[in-house]
């Protein structure tokens, strides 16, 4: 009963948040501001799912989040094209500390720790390390290589799921494969962020 009460209170709060966000969206006239407000609208929808508070909720938030981010990215692309902002040069980051050697050490530590953690979280940590590495060292276009690594790791991940489904006796192997697959996948995807600062400037 008390759980149900907590759920209802949480639901009420989320709906109030959604109502405020929608109200803001209605009175805001500037397109860019509306785009930013949309994120505020998006969060309550994830909140409603999160309120379930079960494993299922965790499994549902991820696709919901991905779809939401995809929509947001698509909309910002349209905004950029629509307002003719494409010609404007994007400035790369120029932070002195990052260009020193310290980030290299940090990135090695992060990668090692990430690999030990493995799985999704490990991928995140190690990915952060790779981001540091790219930011510190600059990069030549390794996109094809990264894409390939990402593709292969994804294939490993999917294959592991097939093992789970069809030959469950080998669950331990499948578990390791899935963990390594997702680790590589998340590392690669995050490292792409490190290489995405502006055009042509390393």
């Amino acid at each position, binding site marked *: 009963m008390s759980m149900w009460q907590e759920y209802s209170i949480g639901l009420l709060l989320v709906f109030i948040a959604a109502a405020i966000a929608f109200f803001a969206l209605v009175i805001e006239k500037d397109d860019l501001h509306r785009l930013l407000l*949309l994120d505020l609208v*998006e969060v309550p929808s994830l909140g409603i799912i999160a309120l379930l508070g079960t494993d299922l909720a965790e499994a*549902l938030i991820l696709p919901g989040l991905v*779809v939401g981010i995809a*929509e947001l990215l698509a909309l910002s692309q*349209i905004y950029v*094209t629509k307002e003719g902002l494409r010609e404007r040069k994007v400035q790369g980051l120029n932070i002195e500390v990052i260009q020193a050697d310290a980030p290299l050490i940090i990135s090695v530590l992060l990668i090692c720790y990430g690999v030990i953690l493995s799985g999704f979280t490990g991928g995140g940590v190690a990915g952060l390390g790779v981001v540091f590495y790219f930011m510190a060292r600059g990069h030549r276009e390794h996109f094809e290589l990264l894409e390939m690594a990402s593709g292969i790791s994804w294939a490993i991940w999917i294959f592991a799921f097939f093992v789970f489904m069809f030959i469950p006796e080998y669950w331990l192997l499948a578990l390791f494969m899935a963990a390594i697959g997702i680790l590589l996948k998340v590392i690669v995807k995050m490292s792409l962020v490190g290489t995405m600062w502006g055009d042509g400037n390393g």
Partner: protein
Amino acid sequence: MGMDNPGGIPYFILEFGDELVYFSPYTVSLFILALVFTLFAVIAKPERQVDIVFGGDAFYAKETSLAELKFRRFMAIACGFASMGAMVTGDLFNFTLFISLVGICNVGIVAAVKNRHVQNAAYQYGIVALSATVPLFGAAALIAATTGTLSMVELWSNASLAVPLVVKALLVLGVMGEGMAPFYAAKAEMFRAPGAPYVIMCSLSSLLIFLRVIEVVLVI
């Protein structure tokens, strides 16, 4: 517990654990239509829209560039796949995901057109589609919270599971926001974008998901 077999008796139900797909006469016919129009999008060359001066003789045909064609064809095919998935899925959360995918693809199909009016319409529509994910995902989560399952077959066969009317209304509201052609006037502007087989996917997918959500609401 909904009405008995609103879309006819299911031919068969395909289960991958919790993920299930079910084929009733209704879902199969909608699925086939989505498939047929997706095939059109794959093989058809785009139209060359003719603009005329009304009351005069002047006219010119717009050409679709190859890059634009490729992108829009990709989006149209993705949209076709998403609507095909939404037609036959038996899992409510997957259904909402497919519908939001249809929403993005609809925006993508028209956004490639380099025309300020069309882009504006696409942007405004995108804002509506994105904010419609709140009632859409909210409804799916609330159904899971009140009944403990997301499977349509479970909800349909188990008489003790009742989905509140408000939640059904939320689901319909979400679908309307994602792709309801008739209720979003700016989409008419989107439909004037050149490139027939691709633009037609917008209106097809929105009508299909509307038809499916009626069945879903009746079933659960």
